[in-house]
């Protein structure tokens, strides 16, 4: 594995656009190719905000710090440019696009990655799509359904992983992809992620989760705990296990002493 980080944030701060609500209060994160990082933290601590800020959501404004992706200043890039250079975020709440089939959507997304004038080979695309759907135990007819339109919670999450599998990102951010999945679906998703990483060992993964359950199937190299917009602890898989037992109480206390200071 290479030493240069694929993602490096330093003192990353962000607030809600047009409002004075600061959410990220200085996040330092360093992820190298091939690494799997888990981020855990209580509700409202800023996990989704971090994911969205990295993806370039217009609802948040970076107020300080930096974020570099593969050596380039991530914050300089538009959302779609970030995606095309290899950032992928699986949404906590995927959005429905009525009338646009998954197949059409993914075809358009892949086409957008090509140079002007280059045409996507539709047969290759069909092959890749079918193969990926099989990996995720999705029936081929699923590709003809409109994106997230009337999907169950589990179908939405699976669809996020399908997109990730087809788009082959360098950094996959998965925001609570495990929530709402039953144990069988969780295993399918985990196997999908693990298979993708086996195929492309350089793929880095940032997993946002509340549950140790997912980490039993996708083993993280590092676990971070985020509380009130800051990473308050980083370590190995044992951090997640200790959270399972003690919850966030000790960090909250830590947090209040920090605020008091």
């Amino acid at each position: 594995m290479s030493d240069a980080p694929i993602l490096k944030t330093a003192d990353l701060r962000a607030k809600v656009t047009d409002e004075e609500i600061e959410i990220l209060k200085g996040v330092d994160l360093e992820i190298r190719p091939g690494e799997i990082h888990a981020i855990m933290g209580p509700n409202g601590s800023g996990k989704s905000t971090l994911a969205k800020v990295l993806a370039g959501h217009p609802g948040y404004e970076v107020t300080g710090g930096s974020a570099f992706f593969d050596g380039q200043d991530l914050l300089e890039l538009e959302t779609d440019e970030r995606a095309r250079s290899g950032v992928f975020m699986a949404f906590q709440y995927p959005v429905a696009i009525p009338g646009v089939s998954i197949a059409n959507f993914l075809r358009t997304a892949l086409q957008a990655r090509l140079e002007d004038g280059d045409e996507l080979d539709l047969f290759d695309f069909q092959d890749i799509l079918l193969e990926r759907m099989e990996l995720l135990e999705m029936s081929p007819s699923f590709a003809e359904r409109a994106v997230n339109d009337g999907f169950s919670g589990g179908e939405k999450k699976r669809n996020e992983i399908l997109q990730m599998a087809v788009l082959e990102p360098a950094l996959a951010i998965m925001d609570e992809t495990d929530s709402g999945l039953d144990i069988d679906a969780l295993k399918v998703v985990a196997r999908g992620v693990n298979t993708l990483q086996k195929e492309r060992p350089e793929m880095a993964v940032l997993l946002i989760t509340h549950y140790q359950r997912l980490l039993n199937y996708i083993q993280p190299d590092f676990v971070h705990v985020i509380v009130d917009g800051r990473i308050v602890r980083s370590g190995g898989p044992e951090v997640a296990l200790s959270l399972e037992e003690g919850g966030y109480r000790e960090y909250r206390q830590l947090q209040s002493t920090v605020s008091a200071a």
Partner: protein
Amino acid sequence: MQAPAARPLEGVTATINAAAVERLAAGEPDWLAERRWRAWEAYERTPLPTTRLEEWRYTDLSRKLDLDALSPAARGPRGISPEAWPPELHQAMREDWDAAGHIVEIDGRVVHADLTSEARAQGVVLASLREAVHAHPDLLREHLAARAIPPDQGKFSALNAALWTDGTVLFVPRNVTLPLPVRITRWVSDPATAYFTRTLVIGEDWSTVSVVEEILSPNFDEQAFFLSATEVLAGDNSTTHYASVQRMGLGAFHMALYRSLVGRDARTDSLHVTLGASTARLDLNSELAAPGAHSHILGLYFGNEDQHFDHCTSQNHAAPHATSDLLYKGALDDASGSVFRGIIRVSPGAQRTDAYQTNRNLLLSEEASAHALPNLEIEADDVRCSHGATVGQLEEEALFYLQSRGLSRRRAERLVVRGFLQDVLQRRPPGSVTEKVTRAIEEKLRAH
């Protein structure tokens, strides 16, 4: 010389006048000439609609239509060979799938008609109205401007019935199925000109009929006005598929009157696509005339620049146990605007009516506007009716989702619009107009 009228007659101009009726009626059989004159009288009697009328509240004809600047189209030469047809017309026809027959109408005059020999052998009639006046007088006499759109329905039904220059009649006899559509393709080219044409579709009992009407034109510096009247008479147990695609250029005012009379246990499907012209007005009326009748109506529009579309629809339930379902969807870009005014009317005897009406609009720019005015008028008690309308904007969250997969903002917007309009087209079988309309929408989207 006539004595000047006490009050100027609204809409009677230096060229849209009795002399114009006279010229058309000369040489026509008496019954037809009489019909024209009766229509002309109705036209003279009827004031021009103003915005004080609910149906015209958002389309101010005193600003949008300058009748004084228009002259009725000359009848034109009879034959224009295909080599002389404009390339746009050829292009539109090349994009078509198979057909049972064709009518080509240029500048208000039918210049070409063909029909498969199988259809002819089964007694199907496809002809220009001018020709049918002599070849099939009984058919016209019974149905033309008589049952579905008689002149006294309004100012413009009267105008068309008085001054039509040509058009199409399609007759499909009892028990005959016409599996492929008859395609009527129209082209108009002269500015400052008013065109009046008609289409008459007669499907006898147990017949199956399919018709596609398309109109194209260049852009106009001076307004061109196109007024058509389409009458669909659907016999008992018949099936009718109808589609119209309006792709006129800017500077045109397109006004279409469409009415279907749906017989017992008959089914009519219609799709009305509005893409072109600076001003487009559609008066659509489907009359569920007998028990078991079914009318399925789809509308699709996409406006940009300063286009103004006004759709006035009516689902008239005159008989019990009939169903109607209307879905109108449109996207509006730039400074374009649309009006949808729809009404479901259920007569006192029309028990067990099932009627639905939905209008959805998607605004793609700050200046675009849409007025959605669905309405119910129910005089029976045992009915199921519903109506709904929405005017929405592009959702930021959906656009972000698409952009986060690598689509540029523009591409994301286009994909959302395409998806939004998709379900209207999905409900039509391929081969009629779906592919063509999709392409036309893509063209507009490229401008977005």
